């Protein structure tokens, strides 16, 4: 196992224990966004920084009122639990520069250990932050955490996708190659067609990552997204191009990507699926300089998820060495 992972409690006891870690997460409208900060505060982590991401005002539907109210509730809940945190408001579509500035305060010659809670952090943020954490010598140890939801809304989770673009920090290098496109499939197709048109990949070179989520409805939603990708044409569906990997098996996703990578002339990733799969894709892209494409939704449903389940932790870097390079 190259990436030590397990439930938060186990990993915390094994890797963090009494060490001095700083925590970076996202305070969102989701109840589950509070779980890791509460846990860390309870275990004595003093520096907890939470980003508060705002949807752009031209998002539709624009849920600003409901979202603000729920964030306030979550703030209250953190205060009630005596969590001492710093709150940093940022725009969802902030420039790369602004995202990088989040880590600028750690660029002071010291070496830090970071707990990155990606539970409610938008992909365009956590992808670039993870890349920085993995590459910069300022960060000695990096552990990512993720809290699963108890349930997801049956409505659209996110809407109003933008045109396809590379995630900040993850443009494909030149020369352009005949590429394999790996799409991790989630509950929303979110402009996947525009992705297919942007990426120079032929349909038979498209690989699909699925996650076998819990529950019939979740599985049905995932397959519906897949049907949209193949335009309802079963002929486009080649079984060997589909890999079903459990939601939280970050390592298995990485290994599958490596198999596909070695089998192709170039690879581009599209993380539309669960965060844990996206985390693996980001790690892989950092290690192999791959492009990562996404169609950023501008609007997130305030009822995105309800409740919370188990929290998981993944050791991404230890003692200055990213875990994908560890022998």
């Amino acid at each position, binding site marked *: 196992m190259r990436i030590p992972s397990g439930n938060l409690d186990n990993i915390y006891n094994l890797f963090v224990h009494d060490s001095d870690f700083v925590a970076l997460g996202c305070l969102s409208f989701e109840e589950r966004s509070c779980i890791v900060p509460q846990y860390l505060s309870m275990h004595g982590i003093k520096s907890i920084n939470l980003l508060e991401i705002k949807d752009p005002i031209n998002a539709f539907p624009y849920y600003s009122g409901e979202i603000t109210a729920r964030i306030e509730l979550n703030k209250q809940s953190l205060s009630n639990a005596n969590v001492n945190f710093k709150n940093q408001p940022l725009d969802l579509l902030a420039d790369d*520069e602004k995202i990088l500035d989040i880590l600028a305060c750690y660029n002071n010659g010291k070496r830090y250990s970071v707990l990155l809670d990606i539970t409610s952090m938008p992909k365009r943020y956590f992808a670039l932050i993870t890349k920085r954490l993995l590459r910069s010598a300022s960060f000695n140890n990096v552990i990512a955490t993720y809290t699963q939801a108890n349930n997801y809304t049956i409505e659209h989770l996110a809407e109003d996708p933008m045109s396809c673009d590379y995630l900040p920090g993850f443009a494909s290098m030149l020369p352009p190659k005949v590429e394999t496109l790996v799409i991790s499939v989630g509950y929303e197709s979110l402009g996947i067609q525009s992705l297919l048109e942007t990426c120079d990949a*032929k*349909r038979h070179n498209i690989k699909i990552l699925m996650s076998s989520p819990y529950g019939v409805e979740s599985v049905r939603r995932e397959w519906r997204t897949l049907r949209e990708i193949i*335009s309802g044409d079963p002929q486009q569906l080649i079984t060997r191009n589909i890999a079903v990997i459990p939601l939280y098996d970050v390592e298995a996703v990485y290994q599958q990507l490596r198999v596909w990578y070695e089998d192709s002339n170039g690879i581009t990733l599209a993380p539309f699926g669960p965060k844990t799969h996206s985390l693996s894709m980001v790690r892989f892209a950092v290690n192999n300089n791959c492009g990562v494409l996404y169609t950023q939704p501008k609007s997130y449903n305030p009822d995105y998820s309800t409740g919370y389940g188990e929290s998981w932790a993944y050791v991404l870097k230890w003692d200055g060495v990213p875990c994908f390079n560890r022998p």
Partner: protein
Amino acid sequence: MKQQKSYNNDNRARNPFRDPLVTELIEDPELYRKMFSEKILVGETLSAFLPINTILIGPQGFGKSMILNLIRYKIMAQWVSKTGLPPAPLKSVSPFWGISVNLTRINFQAFGRRSISKTIKHGQADPDLDLTCAADYLNHYLFREFVKSLQFLFSNDGEKLRSWLGIKIEDISISDIVKTMSTWRTWFGYYDECNSLDSIIVKCDNRLNTWLSFLNTNIEEIPKEIWETKSTLGEPLHAMGNLLNSFKKSKDRLPLFVIIDQYEVLPELNLTYGTNLQRLINTLIKARDPVVFYKIGARTYDWGKELRVWGAESRIEVQRDYSIINLSDILMRSEDTKKWLFPLLARDVAHKRLRISNYRAKPEALEEMLGPWEAKSESWWYFRYKKNRRFVVAEGPPQSIVKGINKQLAIDTSPLDIRLASAWALQKYKKLWSQQQILSQLKSKPWYRPWWRKERIIPALIQIATMSNSRKLYYGWKTVNYLSGGNITAFLLIYSEIWDMSAKLGLHPLKVKPLPIEVQTEGIYNSSEKWAMRDRNERTGGRKRYQVISQLGPAIHDAVIGDLAISNPGETGFSLREAELWGDFPNESKNRKVSDFLEKCVSWAYLEERPHTSRLREAASRRKWYLHPILSPFYGIPHIRVKEPLYTNVDQVYEWMFGENRPISFRKLKTSLSPPNKKEGFQPRLLRD
């Protein structure tokens, strides 16, 4: 309906109309050559192939990328290698050399999002400096494409292309060319050490990847070798154009065409510098280089939002700096349907797809597959099991008049004629004609007057379908052409869904002629729904468009169904004064919000827009908007549009789009349509019927 239950999997799997990815088509020269309808499209868009800067505009799905793709040297090479000649319509056009860039794919939009200037100037951002870097990146990327194209040109595969271009390989020394290119002053010595085309490409890739590495945060600074050799926007392209001309011994020019793709998404993907990046491209156009010409495809209203050049307030001007080809003008139906080009294009495109999928069929097979449509037959179809029930469609006028109508009509009168007769009678009744007058006039069958009848047929059929508790039927070659609204993507979607539906039921789409009406109808409904949902879920801003149109569509449907006199058959769309939309309005004004929204809907083929002559006594020019015809089945509204739309104003349309009153009402305003008198602060009241 007699349904065969056996599934025809082979025909389903080989659905020739299923949409291949645009990129697959464009990047595969052989497939493109087989699928592209050059006879029709190229002939109509000839100026795109002439040495002038050209902007090709049209809604999503009109085939802009397909047309411009023909300019690329790889595609032209495919054509020329087969026949030694370019596509027939281009035979009279002077040869050209085309390279291309997809701005999104090369991450051009990222310049400025991570500021290079901030790093250089220790924290101080300098937008101009960032744009200088973007210009250098673009110059070198296009240079790379140019050098790659030369490699092809000088290879064995380029032989026929050289012949078409009038270039003789024996007149050319590749080493001289390499020396010339690598020592252009514009590079400031960056390529000095290169001694082959390959080495230039390697060096170029290094440079491009250095810029990308910075933007990707892989490196923290730009090496001196690159920073100190930044090229000036456009200069290298001019040098490339001149070099290309030097290959020909004759005096004929050989222009360099540069296709720029994804220009329109720059402001969306780079909120801070996107329009500045567009200004860089505008600057290239403004230069009016005599040897380099730019070709840009953009959705209808995505062109023209930013026309300023980089570093100055001057703008590029149509006709002076560039020409525009509007595909809507070419492909949308005008009032003279005999000159309508779209059916020819549609047939050609569809037939090519049949051939590629190995179906042997004549072009006419497409038409035969759907057969004819005839209004009266359709109206009978709704009562095919209970013909006597058809008199229900006479509903509307008072019972005494209805009885009179039924008595006067021949025994075999179609439901359509009954409905039209009733509508005519109701109109006259509303105008206070006496019952006797109405019944006596009915003898002359006034609903047969050509214009009166023509304008009312489709609304009448929608009413008949509702009155018979049925779904409106859609079938026939002409209907599908109308539903496509000049949009080839819509046409192929409809055919694809009909094909799928028939294959599912075990019917061979090319052998059952025509396909059953129910099969066609089902396929068309599916395509209509897919069109609506695809935009909603997939495209930027689509969710809002769906929200508005899904209110407007049913409102129009209700208006059509409710107007039993069919007094206003054209009121399935709405008309606004141009001055209300395109004046100098502030960004947050109702006028600007409405015009922006309408423009987006037109660009994404959700609404159809046409100029029209006002029936009001006013000097103002007007425009009218209808839902895209392919959405008509989904919302149950007429797909054929007649003259007079609903005259309205910006306030009402704003209310439809952004107001909170739901459901909306698609009816005439009672108040004057005059714009508010600003001096008196007069605000028209929006009282409704």
